[in-house]
């Protein structure tokens, strides 16, 4: 994800089409100008260094997290038998691949710098990237060779009964806090936009609700995998499909409680309840499509995209109330067909 964003950002800088103010034959010149500024202006170079540092810190955190996973445990009792030199070489290669976009850009900057007789800063950029890569490799070697400490436990306080529908919510606070917080941050941005509460057109508010649910798509996907990984014993419980579907509704109500509260407070009662039901029906639909398309992100994302388009245009055509019925109906159908057919 990190790599994708970095490459996209850099590609965007090179390939973005301006709004037509710059003549086409000047495009290459301006793109060169950006790079010349980098290799000639120490301030711009420092900004670039800060960005690279943040990127590398995030990559170190990511690799550390991956190393703590059960499927990577074999590294601790296999690679550690190699010499430190060989281990360093392997991890250096890993970090080099992670930093490859930056290195490619640095190479391009070096080439531009040489063309325009700027020699020092391009070499400094290269050296800095090399330093970051070496630092990353050393960190990984240290991590792979350390004696594992007792893993940090998230203590969920309270010895009250934890009902089945709440287990995923506890899981969020145990393992998915960051995803949850980022989702809520996006929600605040959506809610802050002025158009979401246009007095005479509920469609804009319904679009906002659609965006809110789409922001939760990742959490809903993770909910599906949590159920698959940790709650498979539930399929042996003598619970009917309606009861399990109802539990799913309760889970989403708790998950979307802040948003639903806002809907009920910011809108008139009838509009608020309609929007709440619309949001809930969309969440249920997203959850149910996981039983068909939730095995991997590559399958889930396209399905999500198609669903978004269908829901968006249905709202634009004013079919909001029908959508509530259709979403609930379809989600229950998919749930009924998919829940006990897993595996």
């Amino acid at each position, binding site marked *: 994800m990190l790599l994708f964003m970095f490459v996209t950002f850099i590609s965007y800088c090179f390939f973005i089409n301006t709004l037509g103010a710059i003549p086409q034959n000047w495009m290459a010149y301006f793109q060169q100008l950006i790079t010349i500024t980098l290799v000639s202006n120490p301030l711009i170079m420092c900004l670039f260094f800060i960005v690279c540092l943040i990127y590398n810190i995030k990559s170190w955190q990511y690799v550390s997290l991956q190393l703590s996973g059960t499927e990577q445990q074999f590294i601790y009792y296999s690679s550690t038998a190699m010499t430190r030199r060989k281990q360093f070489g392997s991890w250096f290669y890993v970090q080099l691949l992670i930093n490859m976009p930056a290195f490619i850009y640095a190479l391009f900057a070096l080439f531009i710098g040489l063309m325009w007789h700027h020699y020092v800063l391009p070499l400094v950029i290269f050296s800095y990237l090399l330093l970051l890569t070496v630092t990353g490799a050393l960190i990984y070697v240290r991590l792979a060779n350390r004696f594992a400490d007792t893993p940090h436990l*998230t203590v969920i306080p309270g010895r009250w*009964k934890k009902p*089945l529908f709440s287990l995923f919510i506890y*899981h969020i606070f*145990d393992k998915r806090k960051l995803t949850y917080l980022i989702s809520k941050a996006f929600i605040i941005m959506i809610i802050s936009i002025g158009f979401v509460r246009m007095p005479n057109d509920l469609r804009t508010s319904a679009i906002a609700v659609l965006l809110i649910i789409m922001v939760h798509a990742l959490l809903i996907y993770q909910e599906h995998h949590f159920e698959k990984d940790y709650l*498979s014993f539930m399929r*042996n419980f*003598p619970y009917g499909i309606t009861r399990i579907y109802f539990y799913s509704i309760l889970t989403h109500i708790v998950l979307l409680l802040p948003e639903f509260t806002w809907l009920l407070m910011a809108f008139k009662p009838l509009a608020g309840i309609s929007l709440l039901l619309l949001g809930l029906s969309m969440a249920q639909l997203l959850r149910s499509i996981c039983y068909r398309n939730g095995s991997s992100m590559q399958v889930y994302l396209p399905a999500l995209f198609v669903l978004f388009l269908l829901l968006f245009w249905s709202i634009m055509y004013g079919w909001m109330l029908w959508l509530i019925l259709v979403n609930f109906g379809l989600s229950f159908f998919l749930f009924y067909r998919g829940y006990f057919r897993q*595996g």
Partner: protein
Amino acid sequence: MLHLQQFKKYYHHRLVLAIDDLRISPGTYWVKGVNGSGKSTLLKALAGILDFEGDITLNNSLHVKRQTRAYRSLVNFAEAEPVFPPYLSGREMTELFISAKKGTRAQAEAYVSSMQMQDYINDPVSTYSSGMLKKLSLVLAFIGNPSLILLDEPLITMDSASLLVLYKWIRESDASFLLSSHQEPEVGNLEVTGTLLVAAQTLKLVEP
């Protein structure tokens, strides 16, 4: 007790197990087969956890796909490598199963005590070793009033004292058992009604 009809299970279009017609009377059965033969697949399908083609009937009246609730209230299952929400304690897991399987606290407490789990039953499951997890999954499988208990690899990661406790539970229980294992239960510890041999993508009942 159990009747399997036109049972077929595919994984990615590959036939793993096919059983035309098999009746299994009440008793304790050892499910035997090499790695990857389909033992766990069979037990999961019998538990109602895995989808399959065909039908499974319990006690001549309960079809797993039609009377799902009644079937699952009488069939309990313990996985080979159990995975539970890591932040829940063993006690909370037993509470969940007591509620679902209509068991009682006294019943669960008796099983926990006889497995010597009192010291860690209130700790989060994430702190458990594989043996402790296995004991917990076995306790959960005995909660309620099941007619059939399916134990997938119950003998692995268990110490010998705990195995004797498990055999005692099986002998004292009115339920029927299907135990999958690579090791045959020791003679004298458990009276086995028959062996279910999983091989060549099918299942054969071998009476002793």
